[in-house]
C-alpha cells in the first residue's frame, strides 16, 4: 500500500510541516507528546483542514490543497481509533458495530464472524456500552473501525489509556489483525516496544517535523541521533546474541554477558546472531534473594545501580551481566525491601513478558 503525505498546518504557535512516503503496510509514527502526532492523524482523516496538503492513500488522492480537492472525512475511508474508545454511549455494542454504511452486512458475513471471534466480541453484542470494561471497549472500537472496511486504519495511541496487561492484549490483537487480515495501518505511539512489535516502517516526529524514517530496528540501532533513547528509556530494549535454543521447553537463551542468560520465547535465529528484545519495566520484579518454586524462568543476579523517584513510582536501574534493566516499583516496595543503590538483588522476568522483536 502506497502512502504519500505532505502537510503544512499551523495551530497557534505550533506548526506541523511534514512530508513522507511509505509502502507500509503498517506505518508507525513515533514521537513524544506535543510532537504533532495527533494533529497529523486528524489532518489525514480530514478532521482538520491544513493550508497545504497532499494526501494519497493507495490509488486515491484524498486531499490536494491549495487548488485541488479536500475530501470530507466520511469520503476518505480511513477509520480512526483513538486512545479513548469513543463508543456511542446511547446504544448497544451491536449498534456501534453496525454504525458504518454496510457494516451490518459485513458483521453478518463469514469475514465479520472471523473478526468478531478474533476480537472476542460475540458475547458483548447485546450489551450496552456503558458498563463494558476498558479492554472490552477498545476491542469493540477496533471492530467497529474494521467493519467500516477502511483502506487504511488510523490508530492514535490505541493502548495509551489501558493498563499494562490490557495494553499488551490489545497490542497482541493488532499484531493478529496485521497477520490475519493484512489491514494497512498508520498508528502513532510513544512506546518503542509497541512500534517495534507492529510497524514495518517508522516515521519519527519531532516538533512537527520528520526527524527520521526507516525500519524500526534500523532506527533503534542509532537511537541517540534520533532522541529515541529518551523516549524508550523507561522500558527495556536490548540487543542480545543467541546463546542456545531449547525447543523442548520453548525457550531461547540470550547472552546478557558475564555468564548471565535471559530466557526468551523460542525463536529461530542462528546461534551467535543478535536479536532485539523488549519488555516493559512493569514486568521486572525485584527480590532480595533467589526465590524457590518460581514459575518465571529468569531469576537474574543483579545490582541496583540507580533509583529514580518519578512521582508515585520509582524506576530502578539494575545492572545485570553487562546490561542494564529497568524495573518499575512503588515507593512502598522500595521502602519495604530497603532498596539502596549498590545493593545485590535478584531480578525476575517471565519468559512470556520478553518480546522478541526481530533479528539485527
Amino acid at each position, binding site marked *: 500500500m502506497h502512502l504519500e503525505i505532505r502537510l503544512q498546518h499551523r495551530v497557534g504557535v505550533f506548526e506541523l510541516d511534514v512530508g513522507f512516503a511509505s509502502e507500509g503496510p503498517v506505518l508507525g509514527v513515533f514521537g513524544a507528546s506535543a510532537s504533532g502526532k495527533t494533529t497529523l492523524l486528524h489532518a489525514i*482523516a480530514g478532521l482538520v483542514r491544513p493550508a497545504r496538503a497532499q494526501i494519497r492513500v493507495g490509488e486515491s488522492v484524498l486531499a490536494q490543497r491549495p487548488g485541488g480537492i479536500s475530501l470530507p472525512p*466520511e469520503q476518505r475511508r480511513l477509520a480512526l481509533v*483513538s486512545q479513548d474508545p469513543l463508543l456511542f454511549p*446511547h446504544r448497544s455494542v451491536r449498534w456501534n458495530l453496525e454504525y458504518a454504511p454496510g457494516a451490518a452486512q459485513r458483521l453478518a458475513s463469514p469475514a465479520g464472524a472471523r473478526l468478531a471471534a478474533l476480537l472476542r466480541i460475540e458475547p458483548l453484542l447485546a450489551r450496552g456500552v456503558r458498563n463494558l470494561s476498558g479492554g472490552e471497549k477498545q476491542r469493540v472500537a477496533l471492530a467497529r473501525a474494521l467493519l467500516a472496511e477502511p483502506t487504511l486504519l488510523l490508530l492514535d495511541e490505541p493502548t495509551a489509556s489501558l493498563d499494562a496487561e490490557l495494553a499488551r492484549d490489545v497490542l497482541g490483537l493488532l499484531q493478529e489483525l496485521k497477520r490475519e487480515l493484512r489491514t494497512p495501518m498508520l498508528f502513532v505511539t510513544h512506546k518503542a516496544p509497541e512500534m517495534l512489535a507492529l510497524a514495518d516502517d517508522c516515521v519519527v516526529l519531532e516538533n512537527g517535523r520528520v526527524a527520521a524514517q526507516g525500519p524500526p530496528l534500523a532506527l533503534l540501532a542509532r537511537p541517540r541521533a534520533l532522541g529515541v533513547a529518551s523516549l524508550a528509556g523507561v522500558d527495556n530494549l536490548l540487543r542480545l546474541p543467541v546463546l542456545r535454543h531449547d525447543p523442548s521447553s520453548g525457550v531461547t537463551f540470550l547472552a546478557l554477558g558475564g555468564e548471565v542468560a535471559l530466557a526468551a520465547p523460542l525463536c529461530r535465529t542462528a546461534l551467535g546472531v543478535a536479536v532485539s528484545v523488549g519488555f516493559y519495566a512493569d514486568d521486572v520484579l525485584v527480590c532480595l534473594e533467589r526465590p524457590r518454586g518460581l514459575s518465571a524462568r529468569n531469576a537474574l543476579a543483579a545490582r541496583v545501580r540507580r533509583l529514580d523517584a518519578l512521582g508515585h513510582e520509582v524506576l530502578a536501574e539494575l545492572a545485570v551481566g553487562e546490561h542494564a534493566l529497568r524495573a518499575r516499583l512503588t515507593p512502598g516496595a522500595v521502602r519495604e525491601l530497603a532498596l539502596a543503590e549498590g545493593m545485590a538483588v535478584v531480578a525476575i522476568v517471565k519468559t512470556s513478558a520478553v518480546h522478541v522483536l526481530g533479528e539485527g
Partner: protein
Amino acid sequence: MSAAELEVVWLSLRVAAACVLVSALPGIAIGWLLARWQHPLRALLHGVVMLPLVLPPVVTGYLLLALLGRSRPLGRLLYELSGMHVAYTTTACVVAAAVVGFPLLAESVRLAMLAVDRRLEDVSRTLGRSRLATFWRVTLPLSLPGLVAGCVLSFARALGEFGATIVLAGNIEGETRTIPVAVYTLLNVRDGEGAAARLVLVSVALSLLALCGSFWLNARQRRAEST
C-alpha cells in the same frame, strides 16, 4: 369550573402545545448553530436569540405588533398570502408565546449539544457518515434530554405568557383570552376573584405536571442509557 373557564384552560393548552410544535425545529437548528458554528457572527446570533429573555415582554409584543400588525408590510403580506390576519387572533398568542419562550428552548438545546463529546462526531464522520447523518444518529439523540427540558420550559413559559400576548393578541374571549389574560381580566371585575382563584390553581397544577413530566422523561432516559 364554568364552561367559560374551561374554554380559557383549553385555549391556553392549545396555544402552549402549538408554541412548542412550531419552535422545536427552529430551536434545534439554532441550538446546534450556537453550539457548533465556528464564526464571529455566532456571538451576534446568540445575542439576538437571547434578546426576548431580557426585553420586557410588553416591548417584545410591541415590536411583534410593529412587524405583524394588520397595516404593517409583513402583516399585509401574510394576509395576502394566507387570507388571514395574525394580530389579534389565536395565531398571535402562539407567535407571542413562541418568541418569548424561544431563548429557553434554544439555550437548553445549545447547552445539551455543547455537552456532546465532539470526538464522537469526528469518529462518526471517519466511519463514513455525513455531517447530517452524524447529527441525526449521534448529536441529536445524545442531546435529547436537553431538548425535552427545553420543550417543557417553553411549554410552561407559554402557559404563563402575558405581556407580549396582550399587546399582540389582545383580550378576545374564546380567541386570545389565555389563563393569565383571563386572571388579569377577572381581577378587574366585581366578583371575579373566585374564578380567578380557580384558574390560578389550574395554572399551578399544569406547571407542576409539566415539570414532573420532564423529570420523568429524564429519569427514563438515564435508565435506558445505563442498561
